[in-house]
């Protein structure tokens, strides 16, 4: 199939548009705004207690109607299985090549757990019809707004956290940062975003929703109707 490339009309339009923009006089153009400095001045205003980050994340996420199941690094698979049975989720979809996969594979039977191995569009019909829940890892989370950071990948495609009606996301508490800026600046231990962006990077805050009908908030618009966070807290392990 021939790909539509920008044609001669587009090139003419490009030159004309850029020409008109260049013809405009710009007096005293601003220096590059320093967003890092801006957020640095705001750090004084943030909650000082890093340990309460987990609580803030949980409270915010629950506020957006996301469920949070707090567990330990040895019990997470049992906690996840409990959610699956409580919600009667028959068909689960997950990525084969993730740190979750060995335990998922051991826990769930092959007729209940399926791996996202095939590419779209051949897998589309099955993807839209069959699965009750998609299970993904997360890159981390943001306490301030109760937000998950998700970078889809070869192992965990974009649609894994999008098409099944339930999204189960596994999050390590140690990867929760205070603000989005902490995450992209790498101060929270995450990598540099700008130099490293995948084809799709997502912030996800609660299940999908809409207020388009007379301002009434309704959940489950086009994305997942439910979002369940399996939160692995290392401190729970120590206490146990």
């Amino acid at each position, binding site marked *: *199939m021939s*790909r*539509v490339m*920008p044609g001669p*009309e*587009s090139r003419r*339009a*490009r030159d004309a*548009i*850029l020409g008109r*923009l*260049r*013809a*405009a*006089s710009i007096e005293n*153009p*601003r*220096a590059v*705004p320093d*967003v*890092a400095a801006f957020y640095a001045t*705001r750090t004084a205003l943030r909650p000082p207690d890093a340990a309460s980050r987990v609580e803030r994340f949980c409270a915010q996420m629950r506020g957006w109607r996301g469920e949070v199941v707090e567990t330990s690094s040895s019990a997470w698979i049992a906690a996840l299985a409990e959610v699956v049975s409580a919600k009667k989720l028959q068909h689960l979809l997950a990525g084969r090549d993730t740190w979750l996969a060995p335990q998922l594979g051991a826990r769930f039977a092959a007729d209940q757990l399926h791996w*996202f*191995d095939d590419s*779209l*569009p051949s*897998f589309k*019909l099955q993807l839209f019809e069959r699965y009750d829940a998609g299970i993904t890892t997360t890159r981390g989370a943001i306490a301030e*707004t109760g*937000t998950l950071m998700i970078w*889809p990948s*070869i192992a965990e495609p*974009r*649609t894994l956290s*999008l098409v099944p009606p339930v999204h189960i996301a596994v999050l390590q508490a140690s990867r929760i940062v205070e603000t989005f*800026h902490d995450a*992209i*600046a790498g101060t929270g231990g995450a990598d540099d*975003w*700008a130099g490293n*962006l995948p*084809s*799709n990077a*997502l*912030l*996800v*805050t609660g299940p*999908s*929703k*809409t*207020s*388009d009908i*007379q*301002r*009434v908030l*309704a959940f*489950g*618009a*086009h*994305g997942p109707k439910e979002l369940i966070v399996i939160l692995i807290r290392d401190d729970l392990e120590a206490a146990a």
Partner: protein
Amino acid sequence: MNAPDTHTMTTSAGVRLHTTANEVPVNFVRPQDFKAKARAAVADPQLRENFRGAMDFLIDRRAAHFSDGDTFKQFRSMGEAIRQHALAHLPELLEQLEAKLTGLGVQVHFAENAADANRIFLAIAKAQRASIMVKGKSMVSEEIELNHAMAAEGVDCIETDLGEYILQLDGDRPSHIIMPAIHKTKQDIARIFEQRIPNAGYTEDVDELVRIGRETLREQFRDARIGVSGVNFMVAETGTLALVENEGNGRLCTSVPEVHIAITGIEKVIARFDHLLPLYALLTRSATGQAITTYLNLITGPRRAGEKDGPREMHLILLDNGRTQAYREEKFRATLQCIRCGACMNHCPVYTRVGGLSYGTTYPGPIGSIISPHLLGLKATRDLPTASSLCGACGEVCPVNIPIPDLLMKLREAARNDDDQLIAPLQGQASARAALEVATWRMWRLLYANAWIYRLFAYWAPRLRWLTPSNQAGWTRSRTPLIPARRSMRELLAQRRGE
């Protein structure tokens, strides 16, 4: 390739039906008819109630996030700086963005106007042999009338944002840039679904209506070869397109179909990735009073080697359509700082009373009144800059500090005068100039510049007040007639001095 998508859709109940998209003739309003439409809207109590309720709701939601005025001011000056920096370097940033995207495998097209943009859409649809496109919310696609241009060529462009979908089913248009179906009640929507979606039945239950919308559009997402989206911000540094949404339809449109076409205005580019953060924070809080939306979808190129989904082919269409005119003069350039949050319309006393549809433009309200003259020319839009009491609320709440009231004044001037100091005139400049108005102001100037004429006038006006007509054209439509006082101020003062 796969079988081309079909022109019919199947509901989850298995009933086949013709696509509902674009069958209903669209309720078309021209900006020239603003005054008549506004009068009709003001006389419609239901419409006014819908808007008043919705705007109060949005005002309160926003206020809850900016209760601390200093935080708002700090973010706003950062947002303004980022947008002004981007505009000052616009040609270079567009070239950097184009190079970055091309390197990632994205086809970058430039379009002078709506016809150019639609031609590119059509060429891609033809190459894909696609008869359906699924579209996420995009005001620029409204600006180019994409749905109708595609329908004319047999391509169904299906709105998937719930609000936009409701309007498409009803042949209606968005009345607000963030909440497009804000002018409809749930009863209206229940009736539309009952009539337009087979087996939907009549229900006023909002969860049920949302479920019907979800089910009906599900297979369109699955089967469409082309997904269309707008863009909230483009990052020149990384070639990233940022999409802000709550429903997930934008993610579906940009993740499931084989081809993704994004369209936006040339002004939406910003220099650096971290510049996105303050703008995103300002956008969600100003628009719907949310600290954050459900999704921030950051797209950096099409599907990469080994990935199992995402579009294999990706296009970006950069539209001018009058934006370079606004860019040309420094005083109008601020118009392009806009991040399309809609706060100015939510806080506008005129918008709240006349509703978004009266304007007859893609962008209604205060921002629409300052951007539309560049997109459509001042001739068609000459009444819009006058649709303001100049109360200043729009400028006060603007998250990027656009001096909207000043720009409204400048456009009013430009609509009436061609002897402005503008280097190159605006399209349609001086088209609102009316002989009677010009003559009236000349008389006024004469009267107030010459003491003896003024004295003559002040003597005769009270004495001839019985001659004043009771019908004074536009003035008496909603006001009592202007009648000179029984005695002029000069006479009253003379009398007092005499006493």
